[in-house]
């Protein structure tokens, strides 16, 4: 499976830092309620991390904290973040796609002329990934006419096409079958290995995580535990 390339400017900037995030003695609050406490962890470039935990454990909150654009969160503690030149894209749990637009129109929200040069180059990349994700024949269809699984693939593809340095995924395969989930994993793994994209994948599906390879951060009792790496079974 071949994937597109990061622009050289972005690749160089990612490798400048030893850690992307350095989190020490940090607590995260939403409206005075402590959601996560005593966080101490580092996230490095090219990490592939599974963020696991039960429903309501705080996975989305932690992703929002890393994302840095959520105004609801209050933080106490020491946090070092990557600079503005490190671009973070997020795949939302509620997808946030536009149902009355076609798949191509939804994907074009990730088109940045500075990165792709022309719309033709961007379309080539769309068709390349669409073939991998098996959604080529739906590209001109409106999302309202497509299944939930296709909508989820579109949301993930949109993040991939943004050529972000860090991709945060919140339950990205909840509507996908096993085979499709594996395709998504393979695609992200190649991006991670080849293009050094940092992937943080939040899921409550421990079965899926057991089958895949990556670092696991498990949320339990408002704390994040580094349980080491999974390995392929």
């Amino acid at each position, binding site marked *: 499976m071949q994937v597109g390339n990061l622009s050289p400017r972005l690749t160089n900037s990612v490798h400048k830092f030893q850690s992307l995030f350095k989190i020490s003695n940090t607590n995260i609050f939403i409206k005075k309620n402590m959601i996560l406490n005593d966080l101490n962890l580092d996230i490095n470039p090219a990490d592939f991390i599974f963020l696991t935990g039960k429903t309501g454990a705080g996975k989305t909150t932690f992703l929002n904290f890393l994302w840095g*654009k959520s105004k609801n969160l209050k933080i106490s503690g020491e946090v070092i973040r990557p600079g503005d030149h490190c671009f973070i894209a997020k795949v939302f749990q509620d997808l946030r796609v536009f149902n009355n637009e076609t798949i191509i129109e939804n994907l074009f*929200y990730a088109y940045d002329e500075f990165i792709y040069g022309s719309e033709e180059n961007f379309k080539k990349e769309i068709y390349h990934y669409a073939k991998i994700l098996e959604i080529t024949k739906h590209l001109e269809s409106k999302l309202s006419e497509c299944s939930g699984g296709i909508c989820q693939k579109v949301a993930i593809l949109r993040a991939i096409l943004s050529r972000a340095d860090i991709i945060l995924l919140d339950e990205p395969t909840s509507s996908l079958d096993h085979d499709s989930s594996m395709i998504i994993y393979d695609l992200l793994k190649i991006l991670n290995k080849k293009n050094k994209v940092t992937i943080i994948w939040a899921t409550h599906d421990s079965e899926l995580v057991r089958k895949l390879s990556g670092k696991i951060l498990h949320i339990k009792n408002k704390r994040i535990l580094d349980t080491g790496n999974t390995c392929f079974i």
Partner: protein
Amino acid sequence: MFYLKLFINAFLEKKVNAIIYSLSFFIMLGAFLYQSEIALFASNTLSVKRKALSFKIAYRENQMTNGFEAKILKIPGVLKIVPVQQDSINKNIQKVLLKYDINQELLNLERFQGLKIILHEDLSIKNQEMVRTYVSKLLANTNSFVAPLSVPNQDLLIQTGNFRGVSLQVLKISMFIAFLSFLISFYFMLMNLYKKSFIVENYQRKKYVALKSLAIGHSPLIFLLLWGIYSEKFQKSFIFLIAILSLGFILTIVTKSQERNGKSSL
């Protein structure tokens, strides 16, 4: 072009909202800028439709002295005089002649001229008759006809007087409704724009996309406002201040609600 395209995309996505927004904007703007002219037009339209207090005369032109019409205009109580068309004169005179079995050819109808003399509405009945009598005296010793007074329905007079007052109130209420419609459609358009801008900011390396798109999309409006301030149309206008504050209020509400829902990075 990117920000303009985004604005147009967000604006036209909900077509009904776009139509309401555009219509209410132009109604509001037009009514605000030209409210005095509109009130005058409404007033004139009403007075034209309502039957005026008047009477008609028909006379041979060669028998009238110069300044005959000017003399009539100088009579107190006369509002204006309006020429009557030849066909109308002929028809009315023929009716009278037929009634009395008089030979029409003797009169040579083509040489008759007609005038409609319109009196002030609030003239008393006694004064109305005095005007008519004076005009008859002016026409004395000539071959002429003086028609009876055409009096508008008294109930209609009162109704149209009230109607004029009501119509001005309706104009103000219409402006207010147009403004409310504009605010509501602006709110929905803004929500849509914020949703799209949020996605753009999440997947492209751009900032403040919503504000930039809004500014570019409303650049004609901004230009109009600046022109209005410069030309003093909007200066010292309380209504204008309320309008600007309302728009700012809507913008603030939408921004804050989108931030709260995690749909804005502003």
